């Protein structure tokens, strides 16, 4: 049978399928769970997200934002100064799909001498996901199991020079690479309960409360979502990150202390190897060595600490 030539290499899929058949399926990925919710009001937009990461039924991370590189582990990714991108599902995928966008947009801004529009921002992840989709769906069938979904909610800059910029915008980007500019879109139905409220929202505080309520609904009703609420407010000129919006799930104090006595771990033998020989201390001079200042003032003997 002639091998069909296509743009996509199928070689690995045969290998992966055969490995899966021998009970060697591909490893499971960590998911960044999924409660993200945008709410536009007047000329601004409020984004919210919860901070749990899961791997199957195990909580892989309780507080993404407290990691040393918050931008990397946050569900809200920097895109441009007035655009942010929220992401959900496989943690590594979302990081790598959102990673090249800021630089692309910066180049675009320099090239066109305009602030990038939100719709422009969707291009990079859209094209990337489209090619990823072919790759993953064919090669990582088990790994995806029909659940793979990347949604980017991109928040907006509205005073974009041209009159065609209609105001706060957000787009949803699906894992297959399709995007739309519907004014709604959250993955979890729990958040959807809050959807009607925001249509008439005219106040920042109200918008914040709606987003908070939507994320809280996800945290408490959806097992994949949990921990804390983080968010940001995007205006035409700047973005304000809101960490610790609410922390309704603090760890409780444990009843006991779990300290182990020295020597708890069994050992069969003890062997200490000396790597450094003790230095011979030779005192020179007639000064008193016990005062710290006098010893520091003099050049000290090599290999001994100045006291």
């Amino acid at each position: 049978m002639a091998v069909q030539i296509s743009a996509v290499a199928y070689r690995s899929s045969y290998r992966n399928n055969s490995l899966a058949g021998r009970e060697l399926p591909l490893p499971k990925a960590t998911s960044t769970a999924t409660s993200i919710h945008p709410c536009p009001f007047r000329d601004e937009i409020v984004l919210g997200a919860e901070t749990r990461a899961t791997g199957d039924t195990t909580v892989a991370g309780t507080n993404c934002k407290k990691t040393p590189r918050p931008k990397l582990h946050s569900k809200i990714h920097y895109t441009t100064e007035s655009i942010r991108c929220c992401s959900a599902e496989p943690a590594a995928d979302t990081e790598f799909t959102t990673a090249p966008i800021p630089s692309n947009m910066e180049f675009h801004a320099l090239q066109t001498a305009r602030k990038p529009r939100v719709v422009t921002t969707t291009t990079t992840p859209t094209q990337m996901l489209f090619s990823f989709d072919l790759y993953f769906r064919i090669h990582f069938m088990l790994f995806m199991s029909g659940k793979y979904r990347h949604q980017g909610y991109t928040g907006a800059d509205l005073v974009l020079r041209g009159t065609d910029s209609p105001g706060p915008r957000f787009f949803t980007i699906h894992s297959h690479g399709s995007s739309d500019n519907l004014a709604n879109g959250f993955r979890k139905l729990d958040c959807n309960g809050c959807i009607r409220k925001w249509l008439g929202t005219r106040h920042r505080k109200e918008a914040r409360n709606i987003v908070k309520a939507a994320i809280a609904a996800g945290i408490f009703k959806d097992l994949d979502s949990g921990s804390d609420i983080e968010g940001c407010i995007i205006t035409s000129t700047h973005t304000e990150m809101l960490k610790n919006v609410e922390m309704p799930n603090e760890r409780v104090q444990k009843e006991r202390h779990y300290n182990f006595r020295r020597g708890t771990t069994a050992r069969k033998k003890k062997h200490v190897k000396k790597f450094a020989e003790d230095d011979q201390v030779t005192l020179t001079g007639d000064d008193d060595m016990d005062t710290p200042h006098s010893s520091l003032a003099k050049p000290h003997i090599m290999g001994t600490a100045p006291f």
Partner: protein
Amino acid sequence: MPAMVSSISQQPTQQAFNPYTENGGTILAIAGADFSVIAGDTRQSEGYSIQTRYAPKVFKLTDKAVLAVNGFAADGNMFVKKVRQRLEWYRHAHAKDMPIRAIARLIQTMLYARRFFPYYVYNILGGIEEDGTGAVYSFDPVGSYEREACRAAGAAQSLVQPFLDNQIYFKNQQPAPGSSFPKHLPLTSVLPLVIDSFTSATERHIEVGDGLEIYVVLAKNSTALQSLQSIRGIQEVTTTTDGERVFVIRRDLKKD
């Protein structure tokens, strides 16, 4: 048969229905020298949704036996109902409560009776033996069982059991020179271990949380009674005057 002719070209189709589901949650039981502690969280979930935040998984059978069920909640509830019915019949026939050793054997036969359409339930039975010692019996869904000092089952079994192995059985721990580990821990140590097991499982397992229900069964004249006085929100649920006493302790767990 003309009706058959038309169906010759059709392939036989198979209809499948899976009557089982998994409702998450975790249970555990620890036996002391003269008491037994049986606990479970109260969350009932299916998939990524919570069905209810309060669905008890731990049931008092008699004043000396408490049964915890985990797995498929509908099967669990039905199983407890049937065990209770058998225990009532026993009471009518013998004018006393069935000993826990006999309840364990009864549960085995009831489970194995359904060998090829099993109750999708992991059972842990805790209580007081006729000789006054604390007992824990753990079962698999088809009736294999064993008496142990402690056991965890359910969604977070793989998180809790190693912790109990280390803290109750002192696995991977060397005693201080010239001393040895106790065979049984006092209730004052066991209760904090149970609470910590569940708060920890709640932190790391998405199907565990909402509430914690701890049953404490004390043997006649148990010395552990003293330490129960100071427990916040403890409630006695003893029904007979046989001497054994049963208490419930309820605690909140994280709800995310």
